[in-house]
């Protein structure tokens, strides 16, 4: 009998969950929207997504290889970033632009700051914003659905809505059979994925619910159709998949509530008063930036400590 027993600090067991499994579930949750985008925009949507994902994974691998870091590709976080970034592009976007977006997201925003967990902003959001600013016309070159009459550029409902869109087109908005970027058009598919994430406890419903509710209420106050506001643009995708990114959103429920309301207000302000028709990505980016402060101000009550403070106040 040799005495070589392992001695470590407690606890000696861990849950079966892992970063990889969580990211895997997010990928799975994005699949309905991917399927919808292929149906709406054709096979190009799938190819563009594949190119973006491949580019993200490649940049992550190459950067870490170059820097002599451990290769984190297996955690699937780059795949999630790639899918989300692709979902923010119109199907007609040239591949090289998608690759530029992937580079900005993975190398500049994520890896230069230290990799997963150290990025101050959501990589996919910044990738999208960089592309939208840098290649404004191509990023706004929204193709019509492939089953439409012609595939010329058409405006996204949010842009149209300031003039034409009637209330009878809710179903079109829900199914996503209209112009726009890949992953944003089919609200129904995003909802299915979002519900899956909530059901599997990957995300808390707090951020999406408070975000969407704020937009709905402000739309009513501002005299806009709340259903159109909720179902169009990047709101659904942003609320369920991008604003809920662990790294860049608040930790506690209180913090998440504040973040959701904050993003709702910023989104509506941009949509109603700004020159841009869409404000979701900027709202999320701004929320990312204030997250450390929200976190510091919304810590949960500690057992036995809160009471002491209350008593001291008496």
């Amino acid at each position, binding site marked *: 009998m040799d*005495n070589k027993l392992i001695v470590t600090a407690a606890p000696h067991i861990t849950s079966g969950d892992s970063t990889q499994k969580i990211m895997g579930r997010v990928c799975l949750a994005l699949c309905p929207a991917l399927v919808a985008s292929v149906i709406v925009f054709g096979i190009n949507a799938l190819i563009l997504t594949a190119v973006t994902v491949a580019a993200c994974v490649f940049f992550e691998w190459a950067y870490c290889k170059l820097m002599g870091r451990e290769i984190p590709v297996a955690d699937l976080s780059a795949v999630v970033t790639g899918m989300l970034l692709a979902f923010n592009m119109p199907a007609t976007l040239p591949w090289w632009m998608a690759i530029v977006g992937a580079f900005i997201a993975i190398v500049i925003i994520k890896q230069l700051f230290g990799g*997963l967990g150290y990025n101050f902003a959501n990589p996919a959001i910044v990738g999208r914003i960089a592309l939208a600013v840098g290649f404004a016309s191509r990023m706004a070159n929204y193709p019509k659905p492939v089953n439409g009459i012609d595939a010329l550029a058409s405006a996204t409902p949010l842009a149209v809505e300031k003039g034409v869109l009637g209330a009878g087109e809710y179903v079109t908005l829900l199914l996503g059979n209209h112009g726009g970027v890949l992953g944003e058009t089919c609200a129904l598919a995003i909802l299915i994925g979002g519900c899956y994430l909530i059901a599997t406890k990957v995300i808390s419903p707090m951020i999406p619910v408070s975000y969407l509710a704020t937009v709905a209420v402000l739309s009513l106050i501002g005299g806009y159709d709340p259903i159109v506001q909720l179902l169009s643009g990047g709101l659904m995708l942003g609320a369920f998949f991008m604003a809920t990114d662990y790294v860049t959103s608040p*930790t506690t429920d209180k913090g998440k509530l504040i973040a959701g309301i904050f993003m709702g207000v910023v989104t509506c302000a941009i949509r109603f008063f700004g020159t841009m028709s869409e404000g979701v990505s900027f709202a999320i980016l701004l929320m990312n930036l204030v997250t450390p402060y929200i976190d510091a101000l919304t810590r949960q009550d500690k057992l036995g400590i809160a*009471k002491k403070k209350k008593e001291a106040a008496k």
Partner: protein
Amino acid sequence: MPLPSRIVLSMGQHIGAPAAPQVAKGDQVLVGTVVGKAGGFVSSDIHSGVSGTVDSIITITAPNGAPQTAVVIIPDGKQTVDPAIAPPTVTDLKSFQDAVRASGLVGLGGAGFPTAVKLSPKNLDEIDTLLINGAECEPYITSDNRCFLEDTQYILDGIQAVMKYLEIPRCIIGIEGNKPEAIAKMKSVATAGIEVKELPCRYPQGAEKVLIENCTGREVPFPGLPSDVGVIVMNVTSVAFVGKYLATGMPLTTKRLTVDGDIIKEPKNVEVVIGTPVQELMDFCGGFTEEPGKVLYGGPMMGNCIADLSQPILKNNNAVLAFSKKMAQLPKPTNCIHCGRCTNACPLGLSAKEIVQAYNDGNVELLIELNADLCMSCGTCSFVCPAKRPLAPSIALAKIMMKNGGKK
């Protein structure tokens, strides 16, 4: 289980000062003979569980890694009971506390806090609730459940004695809902003033502060003790022992514990003589199916690893678990993804990841603001972490850093 070939009685089986050996090599001892005398107020006597000869006084390594004196006794197999053993005469609070002190009882739930000290609170008038901890929330362990079923009457006697002599009007027995037999049994015997409360199965239900909040709605202030909110918490096994001691006068010399783990051939609950080497206990349970990777005193969440199988069973052990090499190897930690599970899961409301960050930064001010010293090392944060980060051990280090004023 049959008598072991030898027993090793550690002089440090409790929180507080170690006991002082009262015997020398070659001395004869009987069952119940005092082997170690309490070394202070917060300390406890150590008794022999066998009759036999003192073989030697040695130094062993305690679970916390520090050296500890221990008395080795070779049993003669006769199990002659010390003639001094007789049921104690208890008439009032003082004689009750003295009896508990003489019994060598320490908190059997795991902490090992001398029970006589616990039963001598400074604010006795304000204590209105005796809380019996039968949550048994750590995975694998079932010895408290057996205690409920086998020692029902002793539990009741113990509770009634504590309530009578400390003049506590109310008792709540908290049991996790996964022990329906224990709940039914206790409900069937509960007398006036005793309430059985079914608790949700949620680790760490049995943590003192969590249990108090769930059973009474009171929040123990920090820093403070349960007595500050009028509660005394006793483990069910401890209170059962009080009942048994009052009836028999036999001090604490045996312990029921769970032997389990993925490589134990015959997992079971065993009543063993305190001091039995772990190796002999393992042999009694059929041995290992494969070479052990890790052997623990206590549960998988808060238990301590033992360095070798010659280590003895201690008073406050409620389980010995053995895991294969495969299970013993914890997964490699990866980057924190700030999912917040550690924070949201903390039973005390601490922000685990922030505490670890502050520790890594050497930021003592932030550690104080985050109340890192409130942590009770339940291990929930480490367990839930998807990145497999060892948060609980880091927070333990952070607490040391706070004490040292910033030095790692």
